[in-house]
């Protein structure tokens, strides 16, 4: 059904369609309307789930860690300071190999207080063993949430869906909401590596010897690597079922492009229009969207090794460069523009200007786009 939904409501719809059993979340702008909508769905009996009103984000993830360990499909959502407050639990969940899905509505970290989008918050999950996906619009937020459960439960790693605060979370736009039976046939019943039950006296997470514990990390690394193939397969299956194909990256006019811009998140839409404008003037430029930041699509990037590459970052690693700039820079030579931090608005005309400077060879190694 085609309708108008905000990104946050689209996520809530996806959670409902995924037949989630336990939802725990603490309000934080701009994530709040996800949990408000889910609480409403639970109260009205539109979804057969329990909603737990926790007292903090740390407990939000702790509750869904508990329910997921018991075999119940679970969901939480957070943003910025909330994500940082639950950071310890993030690592615990992934290291315990518990599949679950969390929406991260990206927002600047203070001070100063600022509620607008930036990707530095979700990118703190980079090293934690979470699969990290970034939505470009409300439709992708819905689609990636549903795929998230399937991917997560296939590789026993938690899954974060990032959606830009306000830009996606509160923008009402056209979303095609799939029907329940199609989602049911796409998303199988929950499976996971182990379930804690009263019937079997096993202990989960006892102290382990160094050498033995390291093997678990090795296991995790291999499963994260394997998740690439799972993400591609699930994205293909989703495409066959719903007509919208997904993968680790999305190519936009890159095939014959001499210049490739790499970006992630909501502003890719504006950047695609800027690509169109440069193309109309005969400039061979394309855009590679990182739909997934973890696992990192190294092989996809190696394919564009011979092009001029620019990474535009909505995040920064203090003392070095943009976080995606760092990541991509590990695979191929690239220039790096830091823009749109703290929610600074970036429109088509900004990207046209940046792209023109990039094509003319005027962009420095690392350049801040201050307004």
């Amino acid at each position, binding site marked *: 059904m085609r309708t108008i939904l905000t990104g946050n409501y689209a996520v809530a719809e996806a959670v409902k369609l995924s037949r989630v059993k336990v939802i725990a979340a603490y309000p934080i702008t701009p994530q709040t309307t996800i949990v408000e909508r889910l609480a409403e769905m639970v109260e009205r009996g539109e979804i057969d789930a329990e909603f737990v009103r926790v007292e903090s984000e740390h407990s939000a993830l702790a509750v869904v860690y508990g329910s997921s360990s018991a075999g*119940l499909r679970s969901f939480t959502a957070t943003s910025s300071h909330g994500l940082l407050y639950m950071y310890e639990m993030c690592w615990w969940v992934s290291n315990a190999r518990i599949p679950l899905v969390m929406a991260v509505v990206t927002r600047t970290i203070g001070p100063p207080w600022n509620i607008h989008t930036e990707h530095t918050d979700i990118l703190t999950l980079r090293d934690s063993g979470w699969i990290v996906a970034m939505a470009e619009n409300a439709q992708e937020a819905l689609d990636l949430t549903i795929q998230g459960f399937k991917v997560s439960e296939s590789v026993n790693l938690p899954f974060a869906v990032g959606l830009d605060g306000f830009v996606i979370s509160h923008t009402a736009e056209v979303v095609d909401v799939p029907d329940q039976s199609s989602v049911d046939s796409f998303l199988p019943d929950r499976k996971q590596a182990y379930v804690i039950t*009263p019937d079997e006296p096993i202990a989960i997470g006892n102290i382990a010897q160094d050498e033995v514990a390291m093997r678990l990390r090795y296991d995790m690394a291999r499963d994260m690597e394997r998740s690439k193939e799972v993400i591609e397969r699930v994205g293909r299956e989703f495409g066959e079922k719903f007509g919208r194909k997904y993968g680790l990256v999305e190519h936009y006019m890159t095939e014959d492009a001499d210049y490739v811009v790499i970006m992630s998140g909501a502003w890719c839409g504006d950047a695609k229009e800027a690509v169109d404008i440069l193309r109309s003037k005969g400039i061979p430029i394309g855009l590679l969207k990182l739909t997934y930041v973890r696992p990192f699509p190294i092989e996809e990037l190696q394919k564009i090794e011979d092009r001029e590459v620019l990474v535009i970052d909505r995040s920064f690693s203090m003392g070095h460069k943009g976080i995606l700039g760092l990541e991509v820079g590990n695979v191929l030579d690239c220039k790096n523009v830091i823009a749109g931090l703290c929610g600074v608005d970036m429109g088509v005309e900004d990207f046209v200007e940046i792209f023109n400077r990039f094509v003319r060879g005027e962009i420095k190694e690392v350049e801040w786009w201050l307004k």
Partner: protein
Amino acid sequence: MKLADEIGCPLLPGNPSCQGCPHAIGLKALSVLKNPIVVVPAGCTTIIAGIHPKSSIDFPLIHVPFASAPAVACGLSKAYDNVVVWMGDGAADIGFATLSGSAIRNDNIIVIVSDNEAYMNTGIQASGTTFWKAKTTTSPTGKREEKKDLALIMLMHRVPYVATASIGYMRDFVQKVKKAGSTKGFRFIHLHSPCPPGWRFDSSKTVEIARMAVKSGAWILWEYDGKFRLTGASRKYREKDKRFPLADYIKAQGRFRGLSDDDVREIEIKIDNVWKVVEVLERTF
């Protein structure tokens, strides 16, 4: 029925607990619950639970981060009955918001705080429940602040069941665990657990010291199940003249070494004040 016939030994021999460990004694009480799942945050019991691939505890057990235990238990309780949090006073300090939040939600879980009055697992640092003047590595000349009364704080959350207990009075503790087990909602037991290395007394005296705490009135056994009442041995120590000398309890512990008679009298006043609160609660609550 003899207590020995009622309780089992879920903690298996050969575990890493210190000699005379109070938690090791207390854990036995969980054997009266039907099919419990035990949630353990960071603390001494993290170690006591054993080293992979062996588990020292014959229950399903899940290790969880320090401040998270009641919340994880809440999640588990969406699938199972009899989810028990077994945590120390350290976890109750760092995870106090989690504990309070769980109580406010009236989560269907049992929380037992086995309180050895300091952070023992990290090597005896002062906690919120460390007694005034007790020496720890972070209060080397004796703690200057008061001991917080966790059970009374939890009682004020208006949950269905709150009790104090002592590892020196296992019959009383087992009764309380049973009662908690047959109640629904958030249930809380604050268990007094004297620690030989932490309090500096001989490992053979764990039970003796625990009993001295009750006999001297320094630890009061009570429960609330809709009605507040003193239980077990503490009933006879309501009258102060029946209590054992407080100085004997204090002086048996290395952590109080060097306390003056004035200090002991000061402690006595603090204890008398707690009794006043308990007596009011007993009459009115």
